[in-house]
């Protein structure tokens, strides 16, 4: 499975995005699905960069695999930071007005709503977030 391991920093999101776009281009992924996957990666990797490691910066591994029936991209982010299940994050109340709106939780909500599946596992001391998008 193609994968890339980088220090979990905001500045490396672009490198990870270029990496998945290379695979998605080869797979003739629709532009819309690709944009949504890029956004999902931005949301998930920025979470790891901000919250996973408390003292020194650790790594994040991004892997992507194209599967058939239905044709889909399986994107996985793995880090060795503090255990954190993004699926436990409460959805923001999207009916509130601008004044009442809280700023957090929006990114994970976008991922949940725009992807076809999202799952979390904590294995061997690693957070593993897997998202699936039909392409």
């Amino acid at each position: 499975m193609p994968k890339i391991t980088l220090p979990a920093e905001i500045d490396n999101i672009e490198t990870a995005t270029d990496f998945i776009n290379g695979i998605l281009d080869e797979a003739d992924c629709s532009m819309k699905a690709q944009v949504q996957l890029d956004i999902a990666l931005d949301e998930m990797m920025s979470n790891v960069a901000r919250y996973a490691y408390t003292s020194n910066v650790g790594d994040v591994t991004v892997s992507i695999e194209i599967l058939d029936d239905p044709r889909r991209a399986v994107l996985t982010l793995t880090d060795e930071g503090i255990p954190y299940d993004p699926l436990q994050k409460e959805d923001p109340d999207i009916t509130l007005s601008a004044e009442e709106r809280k700023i957090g939780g929006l990114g994970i909500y976008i991922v949940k709503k725009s992807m076809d599946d999202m799952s979390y596992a904590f294995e061997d001391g690693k957070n593993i977030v897997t998202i699936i998008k039909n392409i």
Partner: protein
Amino acid sequence: MTIKKEFENGILTIYPEGKIDTSTAPEAEIELKDDVAAARKLVIDLTDLEYLSSAGLRLLLRLNKTMAAKDGMIVKNVNDSIMEIIEITGFTSILQIEE
């Protein structure tokens, strides 16, 4: 990401190009700060924007709050994938969006 700007009669029109995401939203906010403070009304033309992530949405929300105290903010020429993000996050009821 780059932002073209036009300022006329107190109306600031901005044309962000590329992506507004985690990496680019902070620089966009700094880039716009002084002009937005001076503007009476803000028009955001998204014709050349590829996409925005939640960091971009948060930027729009903050700009919207700043401009709400003045003559407001309009977002226009929103492409389909950006509109979908705006819709699923409920921002359609917050932002003033024009065709």
